[in-house]
């Protein structure tokens, strides 16, 4: 890559997040939960409204689905920590508007959707969630 290409690429990379931030504030998973895993004031105030959350896409449970789990750190599977894959207890279930295009588990994404609070069991997957984003879109963050 020559210097000129590098500069243009750098500008483009720098530009996208700023434009995004003007439209919609990007929050983190920790902004939705308190330490005791109760919902934060922010989460309660935004229930039913569209928000954008930064995180990582856990490897999808099912191909060609419109569902994935957003984790605050990449969903590492640690053979010496766990005897089997285990969800952290502070996750966000995401239902996407379109069929999901998988993003590698360690690439940061921003997902935007309508915030739903309260326990819900997915009728197809049986996945139990406490917080969801519905009608969501996904962008690399």
């Amino acid at each position: 890559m020559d210097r000129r290409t590098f500069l243009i690429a750098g500008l483009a990379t720098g530009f996208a997040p700023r434009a995004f931030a003007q439209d919609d504030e990007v929050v983190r998973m920790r902004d939705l939960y308190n330490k005791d895993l109760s919902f934060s004031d922010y989460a309660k105030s935004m229930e039913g409204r569209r928000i954008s959350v930064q995180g990582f896409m856990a490897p999808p449970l099912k191909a060609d689905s419109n569902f994935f789990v957003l984790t605050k750190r990449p969903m590492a599977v640690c053979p010496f920590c766990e005897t089997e894959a285990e969800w952290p207890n502070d996750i966000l279930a995401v239902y996407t508007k379109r069929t999901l295009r998988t993003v590698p588990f360690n690439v940061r994404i921003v997902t935007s959707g309508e915030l739903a609070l309260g326990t819900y069991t997915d009728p197809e997957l049986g996945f139990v969630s406490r917080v969801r984003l519905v009608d969501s879109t996904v962008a690399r963050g």
Partner: protein
Amino acid sequence: MKLTVTAALVATLSASTAFAQDLPQASSDWYTSAQALIQEKLAAQPITKKAKNVILFVADGNGVGTNYAIRLFDGQSKGMLGSENVLPYESYPYTALIKTYNINAQTPDSAPTAGSMNTGVKQIFNTINLSEAGVNKDCASEEGNKLTTFSEIVTGMGKSVGIVSTARITHATPAAVYAKTADRNWEGEAPEGCTDIAQQLFDAMSAGTVDLVFGGGSRYFAPKDVETMDGGKGRRIDGRNLIEEAQAAGMQYAYNTASFNALNLDGSAPVLGLFEDSHMKYEYDRADDDEPSLTDLTKAAIEHLSKNGEGFYLEIESGRVDHANHAGNAYRTLTDGQEFTQAVALADELTDDEDTLIIVTADHEHAIAFNGYCGRGSNILGLCMGIKAGQTEHSGEPLLGADGKPYTVIGYLNGAGSVMTEQSDGSYFGTRPALDEDAATDPEYLQQALIPMSSETHSGEDVVSFAKGPWAHLLTGTLEQNVIFHVMHHAVTAE
């Protein structure tokens, strides 16, 4: 003899002082503080009494490198530049480098490493407290190959035994105090003919070879799908509820901060504290009113066990320094590591060097590494800042790689933070993402790594043991990890 030693000391002092007067550096703080340290060391005498108590502190995954990072993090959180900080155990009089490999593994895992410290012999990868004839996952190989643990030996001497861990209490390091198994993963279920680790703990508590446990992991003590008091669910398929059985047998049970605070610590009844269904929370994620800290647990354990006039053996593990390293998340590695240092400091305060051997060590290191050449005070979690002529502190300008991007002080050789990511055709390609100080010091940040892996790995690099108290002077040099058992054993049996 004592008089001769004193006279020799005076002669040495005089010579040293006369020599120093001629040196231009003699008035430097570096020089004078080093001189003071030499005097302290000359005056120090090994303690050769029998040890009443032994406390073995293990920060899982806290090798030389990780411990260095904790030193800087702790120092910087106290307003220092970082490198000059001295962690509570780093001032102990005796240190050794410890070789951590397993019989059949150049890179060790936590089961045989902890087993070696608890039995005096190296063991096989993923097994706990079996002889070298034990075969991983082979239940039949347990028969005839079970070793005797330090906890059993000291129980025979009338001492109490305690185990504290922020991991599941059935996890490798705590299990090595009481369990003997062909597979460290048989935490709540084992093949026919073998006994799962949770049941082995219950049996040990019932037999009186373990008197107090604090940790996570209630899931392996309760029947499958049965809710536990900590908010989790049981996983035992044999239907036994070992928590209820323990209570029925007169043991005390705690599951959160309130029930922990209500424990009777007069030493009269065994204590089973299980505060999560899996591992306890990382210190950063923990809420005081939900579950106690490692320091709280350490204080309560010593209070309870010290009621035994014959003494105690207590193994205390900070289990999640390791887990955060596996995740490639230096933030939680260091916040859990700092909590570990505070637990050690408190244990030291609550005990007497004359009768308590304290060993602070780790089971293994990780694939953690450090970039250069950073100026003093570069945030250990953040970017490597340049050195500036004429000042001690860094320049405030991040150093750049040949790719024009800044880099963090800490990096990992492998793991989820890999800069190589999977492409749509399944191949891997990498370029380092741009980053700034805010992003790098965020609690969720994963330091950049090279080889893509879901979980960062251990490494075979040495760890340190820091020791004080009776016979601590035996822990010097470069030693095999199993020697730690022999020092503890000598300390409690010395005449």
